[in-house]
């Protein structure tokens, strides 16, 4: 379980997160949704410690994460995997080397064991015969899948995904969503996904948190989201013409 308590974060006097408190449930796909610039990425990066919050607490189980020193944080981080918006694969390394990187850095496994694990992770995300390719030779969807393979290479307990569907066509986006959901169930991970894609919400959202201008405005499930009486949330959920028509016709 990941708990965030009274988190505040500002950049140059502009408040981006305002007293955010939320709990992310274990073994589930938790979604943070909201408009662009609403504070989703800052919240996610504050949870994983890439941003230092101005105040507030981030708990991983019963460990107060944001008060730990670098080395103690490192131990928790070994249990985390993260998929970045732009994939963040290392340009100078091949697909295989990218996925092997956490294993090289943090395990003392033999080369054969590491290669087996890399191949297992790449097969799991359906990347075949691409081990020797560089990130610049991959499509957007393939990059995301390789980034997921890298994120799961150390069998993480927590998976964080920052807009995993951005820049992908709808079919590839669904494949990525399904992959995240399957992996969450398979490894019993606590997964947090940042998105503004309503398809993802309806596809994989088990717990959904809606954030607007740095404030948590609504929490619930994908079944509850369609019947919410939160006006800002409704404006977001039913933003496109088709959704508006369906809502007004009661379907």
């Amino acid at each position: 379980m990941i708990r965030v308590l009274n988190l505040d974060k500002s950049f140059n006097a502009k408040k981006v997160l305002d007293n955010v408190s939320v709990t992310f449930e274990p073994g589930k796909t938790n979604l943070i949704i909201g408009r662009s610039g609403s504070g989703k990425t800052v919240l996610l990066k504050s949870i994983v410690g890439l941003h230092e919050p101005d105040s507030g607490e981030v708990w991983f189980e019963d460990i107060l994460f944001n008060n730990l020193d670098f080395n103690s944080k490192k131990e928790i981080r070994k249990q985390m995997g993260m998929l970045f918006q732009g994939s963040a694969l290392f340009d100078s390394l091949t697909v295989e080397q990218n996925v092997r990187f956490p294993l090289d850095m943090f395990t003392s496994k033999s080369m054969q064991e590491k290669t087996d694990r890399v191949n297992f992770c790449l097969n799991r995300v359906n990347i075949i015969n691409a081990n020797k390719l560089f990130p610049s030779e991959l499509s957007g969807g393939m990059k995301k899948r390789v980034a997921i393979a890298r994120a799961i290479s150390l069998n993480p307990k927590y998976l964080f995904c920052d807009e995993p569907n951005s820049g992908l066509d709808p079919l590839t986006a669904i494949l990525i969503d399904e992959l995240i959901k399957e992996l969450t169930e398979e490894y019993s991970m606590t997964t947090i996904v940042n998105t503004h894609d309503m398809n993802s919400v309806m596809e994989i959202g088990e717990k959904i948190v809606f954030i607007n201008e740095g404030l948590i405005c609504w929490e619930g499930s994908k079944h509850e989201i369609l019947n919410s009486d939160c006006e800002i949330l409704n404006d977001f959920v039913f933003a496109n013409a088709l959704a508006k028509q369906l809502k007004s016709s009661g379907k």
Partner: protein
Amino acid sequence: MIKFLTELGRYFLMLKKVFSIPEKPALYYKQTMHELVYLGFNSIGIITIISFFMGAVITLQTAYNTENPIYPTYLIGLGCRDSIILEFSSTITALILAGKVGSNIASEIGTMRVTEQIDALEMMGVNSTSYLILPKIIATLLFNPFLTLISISVGILGGWIAGTLAGVVTSEDFIYGIQYAFIPYYITYSMIKTLFFAFIISSVSAFQGYFVEGGSLEVGRASTKAVVYSSLLILLFNVILTQLLLS
């Protein structure tokens, strides 16, 4: 002034993290070998070409400015040797490397910053500052003295070829001149300067790249800043070291 002191503090804090104990020394060794080739070996060509012509011009200018029967012509060789060892090979080479290697380091690390690759390293629990910067500093410290030695050798060779081809000095006089009153300490002085300059180039450029915020435009700016600041610091330390080491 406050901004300058803030940046200075950030630079030294970065250095503190750079010189912390590596997570996996074997990976750092591999990375250092890669940087030795990338930053050092790949610079041999440009250093050779520039040093050759530098030596040639120094010889010709010395010859045309000492066209007087009271000056023995072997002084042309001596002037060429001392100018190259004392100043040109260490300082000019460093300024060239600030342009080539410095911009390279700043843009590489800057691009990693804006594409979240550094965040990915941090996220994994890797000390990104040390992993990315330490191998570059070690590689430049190891290889730049070698580049300076190449520069000295090729510069003197260029002077000899240009001098003899232009007919301003005989081969015998030039060779006598480069051996005449040789002070080995000048090589030590040149090497000490090179080590300081190598550290300035790699650490200042890495600093500019590491703290980039924004996108490709800012990476370009960081790259320019890396070259400008490294060059200015090289010139400043050139004066300080000269005073300290030769006075």
